[in-house]
């Protein structure tokens, strides 16, 4: 992927900046430009998530694409943030350590690099809280 594609989402990926709809109070991460419930009646406002959440479901990835191959096996999970929205992220722990309902908190980490001389992409992962 191209550099601008990572760059334009840096604030979202690095600092868990999403948004919420003032009209209905629903939080969004990943951020949305339109509230799917209120549509044009919604009012989208920026919001930085606390980064505290719980594991709703998970898997241990054993076979990955090339960019992630050196990281296997790694835990991937759907995390429910305390604001009520869910996101997909890696959880840094031993494969047998992760469980449904496990409290987690956000950390800033390298996600992957595009080969030996490519862009290093950073973002948010989670660790057991």
């Amino acid at each position: 992927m191209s550099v601008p594609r990572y760059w334009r989402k840096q604030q979202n990926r690095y600092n868990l900046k999403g948004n919420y709809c003032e009209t209905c109070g629903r939080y969004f991460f990943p951020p949305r430009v339109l509230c799917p419930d209120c549509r044009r009646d919604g009012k989208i406002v920026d919001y930085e998530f606390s980064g505290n959440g719980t594991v709703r479901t998970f898997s241990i990835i054993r076979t990955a694409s090339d960019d992630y191959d050196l990281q296997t096996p790694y835990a991937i999970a759907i995390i429910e943030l305390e604001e009520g929205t869910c996101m997909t992220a890696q959880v840094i722990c031993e494969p047998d350590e992760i469980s449904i309902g496990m409290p987690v908190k956000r950390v800033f980490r390298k996600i992957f690099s595009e080969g030996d001389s490519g862009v290093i992409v950073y973002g948010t992962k989670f660790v057991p809280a």
Partner: protein
Amino acid sequence: MREVAVVGVGLTKFGERWDTSFRNLFVEAGAKAVEDAGMSGDQIDEMFVGNMSGGRFVLQEHIGALIADHAGLTKNHIPATRVEAACASGGLAFRQAYTTVASGMQDIVIAGGVEKMTDVGGSETTDALAGAADREWEGLAGATFPGLYAMIATDYMNRYGLTREQLAMVSVKNHRNGVHNPIAQYRKEITVEDVMRSTLVADPLRLLDCSPVTDGAAAVILCPMEMARKFTDTPVKVLASSQASDTISLHDRRDFSTLDASVAAGRRAFKQASLTPKDIDLVEVHDCFTIAELCAIEDLGFCVKGEAGKLTEDGQTAIGGSIPVNTSGGLKSCGHPVGATGIKQVCEIVSQLRGEAVGRQVDAEIGMTHNVGGTGATVVCNILGV
């Protein structure tokens, strides 16, 4: 709306087709369908081609024109359109063809699907398939496509007490059916132990829970019911064709173990056909992973949530059971050339309803197909009857 019939079907052998190319696969399936319908290609008014990722797998776009050209259909300059909804691309092509004929816009329309997946390496295939889900917020986090279905399985097993063995039984049953399907990629029986011993791909899913990487193509020909007997003595009527959408990301779903788009598409199809799940004699569902077949059986209403594992264990989804599921061998044993799968499902139901499914024949008058794109962001259902 006019009544619509399927009057011709054609399939290539599914598998690792090193011997043939993307375009030739489709031409083979299309020519077989035209021959099956006993018509000339000159009678075809329009074409829809389901294809997920020609751009990634063979670096080819503009697939509608490419296929029309090599099928000899550009001499009449017919409209030829590629449609895409990831693994539901074939289902979508069928529905586009159905609405085109039903509306009266065209009379004879060919709907096909094709995928050539083995011209790239395994890692690139994994990466291309991840594009069926949210590339930016699922794929980039490191979630592979099997990983997303694995998270559905983790949620499901935790909530409904499904056992690992019950999950394996889906694969065992589909391989048993696939033995009798001449086009199937793997005509080989496997055991629960084979599944449990196979490599872990994304816990709890193992290699033999996953549909394979496959080359293949499928095509069907649709026309108004009133014209159908000109081409065949055994027209199969399209009783319903429905489609539904949902959030692209699994993490945005109301319930990770229920594909709401399957529920919606299923209900719409039953409503259009004025039928209920009890009226269906057999169903081809989208078993890209074993867990997906169980979710599909429940989401379409063949049993209540949480019961599909037991239904499978009791043999009710096998040939001879109360609701035979995936007599073709499903995506698991027959193979999953992603763009072709939705059309292959229709071909299997047509074979069954015509009484031509040698070795795996079910006593059937009404059959259903269920084709999923991504983790459930698109679902297409069709009901066919004689």
